[in-house]
């Protein structure tokens, strides 16, 4: 059998369940995240096994676990589920809907709410006054302070905006209530096991995921950018071309490309990036050689550090 035919057959097999062969990676990623939570819970409930019988050692375990759990939950919802919200990973709508509902529980979100914020609000109104998912703007058009956005946005501002948006229409209100009920049913499980554990290894990671991973991601992806116009078509998002970052973050660094073509599969964004490269260079798109994390480090700093974020990747100068 020749190699191509074999490849075709394998792909056809994968397509019965998964929409795209690479979507397997999304499910694996999410499964490991869930396993990480399960391990943390189990160790917390068996302190002698984990050498965390004392209060200080338990605190050290809780902090280390909450940080890494928050980190991966931020990626799992903010990037991995995000891709699913644009292109469901399963061919079955039922499977996609229920997998999605379970998916975002580990990030402290009802899936419908997250989808609404991202697709209906953010993508539809990118950088306009209606895009309340992004940081507020100063009179000069720049984003508000980085730290203020991180601490004020989730869940405080979001709750107010979502309340207004989702209670506006009866049909939307009914659906939002149903989805919230389903979410709370799953999200409350750790509280039934041990409320203290739930606060330390469930709520705290969700706060870290949203404030430090997802919010910082939103900030750096559009900081210094302008609304898309005919004159400036490629300055609405920053492109992060670090290979390791994109390998481990489902190519979310190709953010401009993603906003232009949200239906392009995440695994095909590097290819789209190569095709669009002349357009990006010509249009003066902001391209940086690192990923979101270093960008957050730069934008969280003083003026000198913030200016370093404005520097362009040498390979993308006009």
């Amino acid at each position, binding site marked *: 059998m020749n190699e191509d035919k074999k*490849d*075709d057959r394998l*792909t056809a097999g994968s*397509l019965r369940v998964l929409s*795209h*062969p690479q979507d397997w*990676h999304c499910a*694996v*990623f999410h499964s*490991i*995240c869930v*396993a*990480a939570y399960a*391990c943390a819970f189990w*160790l917390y409930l068996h302190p002698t096994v984990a*050498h*965390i019988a004392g209060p200080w*050692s*338990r605190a*050290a*375990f809780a*902090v*280390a*676990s909450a*940080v*890494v*759990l928050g*980190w*991966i939950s931020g*990626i799992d919802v903010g990037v991995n589920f995000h891709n699913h*919200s*644009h*292109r469901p990973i399963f061919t079955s709508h039922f499977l996609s809907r229920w997998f999605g509902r379970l998916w975002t529980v580990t990030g402290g979100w009802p899936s419908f709410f997250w989808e609404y914020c991202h*697709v209906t609000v953010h993508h*539809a*109104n*990118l950088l306009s006054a209606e895009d309340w998912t992004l940081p507020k703007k100063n009179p000069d058009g720049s984003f508000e302070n980085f730290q203020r956005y991180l601490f004020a946005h989730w869940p405080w501002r979001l709750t107010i905006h979502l309340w207004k948006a989702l209670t506006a229409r009866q049909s939307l209100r009914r659906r939002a209530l149903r989805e919230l009920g389903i979410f709370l049913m799953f999200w409350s499980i750790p509280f039934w096991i041990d409320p203290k554990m739930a606060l330390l290894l469930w709520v705290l990671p969700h706060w870290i995921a949203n404030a430090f991973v997802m919010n910082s991601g939103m900030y750096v992806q559009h900081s210094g950018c302008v609304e*898309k*116009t*005919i004159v400036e*078509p*490629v300055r609405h998002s920053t492109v992060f071309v*670090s290979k*390791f*970052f994109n*390998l*481990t973050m489902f190519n979310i660094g190709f953010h401009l490309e993603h*906003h232009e*073509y*949200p*239906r*392009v599969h995440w695994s*095909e964004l590097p290819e789209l990036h190569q*095709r*669009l490269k002349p357009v990006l260079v010509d249009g003066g798109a902001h391209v940086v050689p*690192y*990923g979101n*994390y*270093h960008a*957050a480090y730069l934008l969280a700093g003083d003026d000198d550090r913030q200016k370093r974020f404005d520097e362009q990747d040498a390979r993308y100068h006009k």
Partner: protein
Amino acid sequence: MIYVLCCQHLGGASQYGRRNQFSPGHSLLPDTAHSKKSVESVEKRRNIKRPTRGFLSSTALIFGRSFFPLFAVAIILGVIVWGPWISLAVTVVAIAATLRLL
């Protein structure tokens, strides 16, 4: 400015479905009409081997893409072997390194 770029085999770049109807402004790629045939072509072209496959097996790619969750599991389960303080120290170093380098 006219951008002459082909969007074939990019997962249907101009195949906007319900979830894609909000892309504002004009498209950077031409808005070509996609027939059923072209969709099938897109599906077939997905199987074109990518250069990374030559270097990394698909299993290695899965591990690479799941790098952060695997790291988290190592930090959490590592507590059994080396205790919570080492896990905390490694976490702090990892965050510092990530903010500086990634």
